[in-house]
């Protein structure tokens, strides 16, 4: 009974693959892979169950948190904060030349490629790996932590700055260049005003991130509250560890609130 009439059936074409059949095949392969992975992991139910009473015991020993060693706690927190502030400052200062060098629309091609290469390499390694490396070089303590955070801040801020610079309007750059301005003047007049608020926002975000990360790098011996936390765990001082964790939570929340507040003030 179907006569040659306009088609009345329509279904949206598949999103990921050219045909519906291939999409189904891909989903089937993915499911098979997950099933195979799980089967090779040797998940031991008994072992997982045995962890539960241990967890209950651990949490029980965490209450009440022990704030009696306040000076140790305060020293660690202060050290973490100092690491975060100093690393952010160093990161901001050093990221400006690197960010400009890594901006396609400002830097000559070879400089751009070298700077991008440095950024890619720098981002390859997680903070903890860099921290282990710096602890080997400079010994235990906050110097290694500070350098780790500073290194990562430079790389991160430079990458963000380079991307912001690449997104600025090209017209003002052209106009400032046409007045006979030099490179520095082009940066200061046409680029800086266009990226300034975003860059300040990114730096504040990075400060917030550094406060968080400063608590982590201490675990591999790079100073700060993380190192105190790690030591308390290895001595089974779970009540003290609980106090440290509560302080970290408070500090990070404070950092996030501050970061939001400052960025809200920026236009």
């Amino acid at each position, binding site marked *: 009974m179907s006569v040659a009439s306009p088609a009345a059936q329509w279904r949206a074409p598949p999103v990921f693959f050219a045909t519906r059949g291939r999409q189904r095949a891909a989903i089937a392969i993915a499911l098979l892979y997950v099933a195979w992975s799980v089967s090779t992991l040797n998940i031991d139910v008994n072992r997982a169950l045995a962890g539960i009473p241990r967890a209950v015991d651990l949490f029980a020993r965490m209450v009440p948190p022990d704030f009696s060693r306040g000076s140790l706690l305060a020293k660690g927190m202060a050290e973490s904060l100092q690491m975060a502030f100093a690393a952010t400052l160093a990161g901001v200062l050093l990221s400006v030349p690197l960010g400009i060098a890594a901006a396609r629309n400002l830097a000559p091609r070879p400089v751009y490629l070298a700077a991008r290469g440095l950024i890619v390499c720098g981002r390859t390694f997680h903070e903890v790996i860099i921290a282990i490396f710096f602890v080997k070089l400079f010994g235990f303590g906050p110097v290694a932590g500070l350098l780790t955070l500073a290194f990562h801040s430079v790389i991160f801020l430079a990458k963000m700055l380079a991307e912001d610079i690449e997104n600025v309007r090209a*017209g003002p750059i052209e*106009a400032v260049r*046409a*007045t006979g*301005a030099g490179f520095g003047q082009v940066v*200061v*007049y046409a680029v800086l005003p*266009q990226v300034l608020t975003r860059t300040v926002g990114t730096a504040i975000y990075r400060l917030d991130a550094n406060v968080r990360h400063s608590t982590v790098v201490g675990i591999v011996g790079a100073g700060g509250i993380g190192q105190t936390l790690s030591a308390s765990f290895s001595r089974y001082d779970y009540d003290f560890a609980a106090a440290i964790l509560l302080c970290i939570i408070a500090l990070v929340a404070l950092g996030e609130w501050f970061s939001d507040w400052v960025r809200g003030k920026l236009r």
Partner: protein
Amino acid sequence: MAIAPRAAPGPDGAAPLLAVENLSKVYPGGTRALDGASFVVSRPEVIAIIGSSGAGKSTLIRCINRLVEPTGGSVRLGGTDLVRLGKAELREARRRIGMIFQEFNLVDRLTVMENVLSGRLGSVGFLASWLRRYPPRDIANAYAMLERVGLSGLHDSRADALSGGQRQRVGIGRALMQEPDLLLVDEPTASLDPKTARQIMRLIRTLAEERATPALVNIHDVALARGFADRVIGLKGGRVAFDGPASALTPAVLTDIYGAEDWSRTIRPDGEEGDGA
């Protein structure tokens, strides 16, 4: 303002103000935007450059101050060939060439005053310009310039707070702060309404005359070109297809530049536009 219509390479043998010879630009990828364009400017006059999109108007004026690097030919401004200049000399030469843009190209987050003063960047050191420490003479000139282009009192407004016409006035002020020997003007009115467009063209023309500065004006609007230019250069396929007084624009010429179309409503007898400078 009875400026003689056509600039021939002066019979008295005086060096031309600007001589563009055989200027070519092939973009990477092979697009030939300019294909041996040549013309001479011997007296301060307003020259409209017309032609269809892609005819090379924008490339032409950008090759003159080398925002776009020409691939061949020469551009002589007051005797120096700009195409051969090194980096430092090119900066020096750009100081003498003011440029006005279609999208105004102001720095939005800077004030009107900072945008106008940026016309002096070629003459002020890096640190002084960064700290906004301009010579008092420049600042006095900038105030006078703002008054001249009709923006008195707006010096501390941010550029992005202004209307389109006001923003183009800032752009004109910035270009003239350079005290240029040549004005390059790229579609100054394409982002403006017809009335503002006429005001802006009139302002550019008046200021160019006052300062005896030749102006090359890329413009889409043939009626505006006829109303405000002394001379018209028509580009077609990167070459100069017409070069003559604005009054010599006939339907035949427009057909040659743009292709066949009914031009009788674009070109009307002089006087009917009522838009003298």
